[in-house]
């Protein structure tokens, strides 16, 4: 059905019906609308606002907040190059330029015929098989010049995505090293049966005995979180699986969801059983849209096997089901309260904490928010017991950790290690021969230099949500930090002053340094801004945004210094650059039209 001959209701009514006209599902309604219409036109905004009894601005605010919702046409083919630093290292810049020139387009521009737009996006979680891009939210991996040329032809011939070669969309697991989680077999329902045998209290005790800590980054003890939630007053509770894996360089949840989803769903069900929830929600990042149908089929099979639904495994009054919600391109939604806002159909702005989600979470009810890996590992604790799990890893960081390894190494992919493993061992295993630096925990993590490679992956030493990017000795750590800073600027939600303005100011300063205009003065400015962001920002995004800059300033100062101007100060205002509009108007760009030659 084309847009011209379809009435508004013809397109939107079936979508609205599917989501019971519930404004809580606004994100899903908008996603499906866009999948049908390529963007969300104003008439759809008006129609949806009325149908859902929302203010127009509430619908518009959601469209404007999420990077993957478009209020105006972005073309029939919307191509977004993943622009993590690992994609850059794999040569995405040249490939992007190649595609732009094939279409004669500028970055972000929509072609005159409305066929295509080409832009960049934050890390798509394909760092082990990049450079990567998304076309209409489906990932194409292992880009090469040849593949770019093929894509250009397919777009020009308007070939539907379903007819593109399937190998373009192949996503490998790249599991390189297995420990207990990835190597233990689990028959469907096995862990859940065991949890039911143990009983709610028994399973909770096992979780607490295991001293298992959440794998999303903050490292809160999972058993304590579950207990706090089950003790919180209220009848209705929720389990949320945070699958908004947006931290640049992280892709372990992708592999867990793609190949171990039974464990993830079973972990959610166990959590639901322990805390007394009857509903679980998976918040799946938009970049993982390609998994949606497969995950829904897995859920359906689990329902048929009585592992979800009513009276699960014959347990009277144990009802639990799982819904999948797609994100729409916002890193900040990895923050649990922003994620909850997003699940409620709103822009993903982090809430004021306290109160915490365990008492006031989804729809104001007690809610457990756990990372994908956390929930998958809960099944392992159910299978083998807390005491067994506690024996793995270190005293303060029990068990194993999945690492997503990418960058300058021979064998990028997923590695499962017991906590306490040294960086040097990891580098040896992944074939990183000339590592100069590793960024642990993604853009918001820690940058380690060679002399720190003896340090260990553990909450008590180098904590990580699971990313490890390797930088060889030919890499420029200033550019790494600049890439991360631009990422944070793009992802800042704009709620609080320090993060909204500070990330932009830090980017401006780094760009000034990159342009050879920086002086020693700028170094102090960067540190001062980082200190403000770290202490005054509303949420973890702003608090960590300056870290990669701060770390590289401490550890890789020469990569900054060699760019610096030897003056004490150089104004950021560039008179010559300010004359650019004048040059454009007069259509002159010769030497005499520039100031630099005369000053």
């Amino acid at each position: 059905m084309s847009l011209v001959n379809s009435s508004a209701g013809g397109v939107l009514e079936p979508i609205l019906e599917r989501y019971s006209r519930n404004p809580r599902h606004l994100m899903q309604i908008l996603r499906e609308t866009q999948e049908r219409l390529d963007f969300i036109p104003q008439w759809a905004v008006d129609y949806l606002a009325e149908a859902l009894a929302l203010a127009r601005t509430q619908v518009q605010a959601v469209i404007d907040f999420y990077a993957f919702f478009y209020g105006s046409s972005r073309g029939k083919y919307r191509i977004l190059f993943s622009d993590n630093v690992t994609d850059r290292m794999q040569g995405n810049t040249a490939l992007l330029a190649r595609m732009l020139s094939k279409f004669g387009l500028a970055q972000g521009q929509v072609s005159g015929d409305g066929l295509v737009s080409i832009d960049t996006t934050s890390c798509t979680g394909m760092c082990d098989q990049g450079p990567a891009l998304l076309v209409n939210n489906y990932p194409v991996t292992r880009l090469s010049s040849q593949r770019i040329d093929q894509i250009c032809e397919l777009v020009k011939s308007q070939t539907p995505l379903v007819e593109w070669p399937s190998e373009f969309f192949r996503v490998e697991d790249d599991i390189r090293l297995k420990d207990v989680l990835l190597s233990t077999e689990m028959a469907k329902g096995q862990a859940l049966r065991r949890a039911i045998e143990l009983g709610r209290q028994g399973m909770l005790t096992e979780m607490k005995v295991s001293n298992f800590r959440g794998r999303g980054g903050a490292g809160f003890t999972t058993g304590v979180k579950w207990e706090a939630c089950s003790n919180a007053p209220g009848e209705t509770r929720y389990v949320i699986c945070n699958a908004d894996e947006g931290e640049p360089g992280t892709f372990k949840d992708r592999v867990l969801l793609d190949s171990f989803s039974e464990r993830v769903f079973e972990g959610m069900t166990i959590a639901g059983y322990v805390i007394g929830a009857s509903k679980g929600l998976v918040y799946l990042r938009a970049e993982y849209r390609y998994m949606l149908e497969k995950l829904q089929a897995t859920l359906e099979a689990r329902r048929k096997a009585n592992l979800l639904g009513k009276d699960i495994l014959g347990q009277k009054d144990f009802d639990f089901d799982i819904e999948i919600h797609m994100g729409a391109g916002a890193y900040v939604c990895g923050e649990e309260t922003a994620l909850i806002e997003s699940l409620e159909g709103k822009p993903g702005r982090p809430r004021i904490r306290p109160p915490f989600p365990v008492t006031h979470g989804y729809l104001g009810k007690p809610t457990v928010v756990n990372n994908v890996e956390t929930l998958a590992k809960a099944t392992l604790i159910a299978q083998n017991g807390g005491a067994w799990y506690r024996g793995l890893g270190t005293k303060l960081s029990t068990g194993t950790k999945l690492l997503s390894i990418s960058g300058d190494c021979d064998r990028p992919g997923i590695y499962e290690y017991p906590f306490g493993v040294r960086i040097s061992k990891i580098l040896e295993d992944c074939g990183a021969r000339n590592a100069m630096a590793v960024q642990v925990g993604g853009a918001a993590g820690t940058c380690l230099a060679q002399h720190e490679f003896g340090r260990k992956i553990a909450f008590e030493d180098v904590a990580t949500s699971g990313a490890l990017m390797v930088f060889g000795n030919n890499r420029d750590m200033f550019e790494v930090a600049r890439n991360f800073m631009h990422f944070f600027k793009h992802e800042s939600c704009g709620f609080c002053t320090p993060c909204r303005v500070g990330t932009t100011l830090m980017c401006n300063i780094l760009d000034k340094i990159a342009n050879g205009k920086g002086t020693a003065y700028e170094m102090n400015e960067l540190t001062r801004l980082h200190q403000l962001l770290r202490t005054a920002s509303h949420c973890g995004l702003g608090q960590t945004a300056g870290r990669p800059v701060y770390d590289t300033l401490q550890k890789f100062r020469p990569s900054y210094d060699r760019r610096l101007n030897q003056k004490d100060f150089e104004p950021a205002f560039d008179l010559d650059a300010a004359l650019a509009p004048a040059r454009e108007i007069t259509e002159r760009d010769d030497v005499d039209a520039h100031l630099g030659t005369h000053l």
Partner: protein
Amino acid sequence: MNSENTFIIDGTPIPFEPDQTVLQAALKADVFIPHLCYYPGLRPNGNCKLCTVIINGRHASACTAFARPGIEVENNTPELNDKRRLLLQMLFVEGNHFCPGCEKSGNCQLQALAYELEMMTPHFNHFFPSRKLDTSHPDVFLDMNRCINCCLCVQASCEVDKKNIFAISGRGMAARIVVNTPSGKLGDSNFALSDKAASVCPVGAILPKRGSFSVPIGQRIYDDLPISSQTEFLATRKA
């Protein structure tokens, strides 16, 4: 005064009532904490971060942190005021704030705080954003050049006026206040000069038409006394 209902700000005991925030209790006790996005009677929002203090060693927003017995709050320290000055500079360069020609001058909380915290220069390069002036309403100008995204108008319109006229849209630097009408124009809404939302703006983004400069510069709220000496006014304004 016993320790059950007091806490400490910079060594001074401050009494508080149940459910009071640190900022509310401080203002009531005549202790000034710089702030922009807090207004008595509206739900604390916590976005401007000017009221950042250190509570028992940890940074927090005084407007959203609840007063608890015995907590120790650092407020008027050179380190915190330096951070606040930096935040003010951020707000100044982010928007288009030209005090000498602004009708809000003297009544402007942003300007008053800049004087209070001795902000001598904007320090950073101005962003000079291109923002809209909405003159469509018969009684009010909506000048987004001066908006600092404090969201007080959004809240007042929703919580007090029950009209839901304003909202915040966009992300990051693109975050901005929008008007809930199909045209996006204030003139197409049922906004009225008597709305609470018309009077809570701490800067000059929402300005009444006509009557400009009827109170001369020099006789305005913050011309007479610095903002730090007007805690009673700040605490008792009613939303």
